[in-house]
């Protein structure tokens, strides 16, 4: 019985600590939400208590009526979707090849990829700019997608490969005996089992473009091709502080993200593989 009490106390302590952590994690987020609905402009004029200034929707109407917010959102969504889809296809295909085939220069290629992902893509930004200029990719969304895609491949191929390595080879071999070709094995066996890591990959490569600032700044020029990061950043520069408008814009980005995450985290943590792999 004493054991049970100790366990309950332990559990309560863990719960309390987790709650305190949660508050720390939530604090800036709650504050942004409140700022988005607060009258006024600068953060200096806001009350320190969330929702302490009253309630207004003027920042949202301002975003939709007086700024290009919707266009930024649409552009960023297009870029993120394409980057995510293409990264999944290219990286997982590469990972499958690296995991299951042996060929000339395989080792050096994998090492090269490990070394390449050391560099942030913008180290080569002058060259990327000129190459995009040559293939007429400047000031286009697809030019940006290409840059992101190429930057994603080295890291993510490694990530998916180390996962595919854990899938028993006996599965592919039995399928090959049944007459399946490589593409079939890849699509029907590897991809479904590797789904958790594919989902993870999809999410990470989908989120990255929303955060990026340097490449859109360099590649996209015209007003109708701006992205959210560029637009939002313009609200809180050194010269002006429109924190509340920024908060409203940021909130509209974050909400779909958060909903998406809460839905997909179930897929990401549920058990997988075990059912398919009965040796």
């Amino acid at each position, binding site marked *: 019985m004493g054991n049970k009490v100790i366990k309950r106390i332990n559990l309560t302590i863990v719960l309390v600590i987790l709650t305190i952590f949660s508050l720390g994690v939530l604090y800036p987020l709650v504050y942004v939400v409140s700022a988005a609905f607060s009258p006024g402009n600068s953060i200096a004029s806001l009350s320190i208590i969330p929702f302490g200034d009253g309630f207004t929707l003027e920042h949202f109407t301002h975003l939709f009526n007086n700024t290009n917010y919707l266009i930024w959102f649409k552009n960023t969504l297009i870029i993120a979707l394409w980057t995510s889809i293409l990264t999944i296809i290219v*990286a997982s295909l590469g990972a499958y090849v690296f995991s299951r085939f042996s060929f000339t220069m395989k080792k050096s290629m994998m090492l090269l990829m490990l070394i390449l992902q050391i560099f942030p893509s913008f180290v080569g930004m002058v060259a990327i700019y000129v190459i995009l200029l040559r293939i007429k990719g400047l000031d286009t969304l697809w030019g940006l997608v290409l840059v992101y895609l190429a930057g994603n491949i080295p890291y993510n191929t490694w990530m998916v490969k180390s996962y595919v390595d854990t899938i028993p080879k006996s599965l592919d071999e039995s399928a090959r005996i049944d007459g399946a070709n490589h593409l079939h094995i890849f699509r029907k066996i590897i991809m479904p089992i590797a789904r958790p890591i594919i989902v993870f990959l999809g999410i990470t490569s989908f989120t990255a473009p929303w955060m990026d600032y340097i490449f859109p700044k360099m590649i996209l020029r015209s007003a109708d091709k701006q992205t959210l990061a560029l637009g939002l950043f313009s609200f809180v520069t050194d010269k002006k502080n429109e924190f509340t408008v920024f908060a409203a814009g940021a909130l509209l980005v974050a909400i779909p993200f958060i909903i998406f995450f809460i839905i997909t985290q179930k897929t990401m943590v549920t058990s997988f593989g075990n059912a398919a792999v009965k040796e």
Partner: protein
Amino acid sequence: MNTRLKEDGSSRKQILITSMLFMGLGHIVHFKQYIKGFFYALFEVLILFMLPTILRKLNDMVTLGIMKPDLPVKERDHSIFMLIDGVIVLAILFIFVVVYIISVKSALAEYKEFCIDKRLKTNKESISRALGKSFPIFGLAPSVGLILFFVVVPLIFSACVAFTNYSAPNNIPPNNTVDWVGMDNFVAMFGGEAVWTSALGRVALWTIVWAVLATATCYFGGLIMAVVLMDNKLKFAPIFRGVFILPYAVPSVVSMLVWQNLLNGSFGTVNRTLMQLGWIDKAIPWLSNEWLAKFTTILINLWAGFPYFMLLVTGTMTAISADLYEAARIDGANKFQVFKKITLPMVLYQTMPLIIMSFTHNINNFGAIFFLTGGNPVVSDSTITSAGGTDILVTWIYKLTVNLMKYSYASVLAIMIFIILAPFAIFQFRRTKSYKEGEF
């Protein structure tokens, strides 16, 4: 020429010569594989056709153009275009050499099989084999192409720039040309110019300290949270998990800009709150004191970064077979033993490459520094070098490129990142299990 092949392996030399003479010739002459041979040959014809252009581009890369001050700006030699074209040409030549080697190897392999089978393959056989064997090529072609032109070529280009004088104000094309200067930039950065040397030492040291602390705090933060929340006795685990994922769900530009405003020394909400609570008398310079700013960047990075590892570790843990846990429970292992002997080694094995990558990512974590502190606060050498108190190498590279247009110095820093990280990455990679046990 006698195209008859001997079956005892003595025609190897003959095949070697034919396939080295012209790409694909061996396949056509000896094995009657016309389609495969045709594509190989076509590739070589294309390269030969382009040869004059290739040679001109390589020559331009060596000279980087000549000053023609009397011409209008548009018609002057553009050194940077010349340099990039040269690098692209080199990349294409490299692919050509690799394909050439592959074609010769493939012809020899074909001959080996001929000696065993004592006959040539029928068309059908060789096509179905080629389809099977070519899967790796089609699977990797998109990766290789993209990486080559958008990662490798730009990186080699910027490595080249480190040996030129491409910097403002005197050497910016198209008005002026750029010249090769050998090791001048390295000499200046490593002792030649005291201000730059001391700034480099300061920034490099902080970059490493930052990366180690940022990676360690996020990994263990995420690991602990994942393990605690995996406990199925904990009632609200999904809710907590949902809350802890939130920082990851918010785009980091947004969250860093929010923190920047919240932590602002004079009007930031954090300071105003602490003052109204009476916990502090005067504002804490979260982002304007050099050392406190460094601490703040790591703390805020933990806030933003631990969910990634929490998700990753949770995903990895669910992949660990339930049988293992059951066996451990039957043997009477307690929770801590299970964690230490099963969970931790398995999770570490699975995530090791990702820890390495996270370290290298943090060495290059532009967003976490740039949007939170902008590399500030200003220190003694900032006016000349533009490097602030929390600047890491990459943010400094960005400032050198965009603000000062000192591309040559920026490239020296990029090479430094390479020198710091490449051996480390290789060393770590060789220690991982997948290297020791895998097919390497």
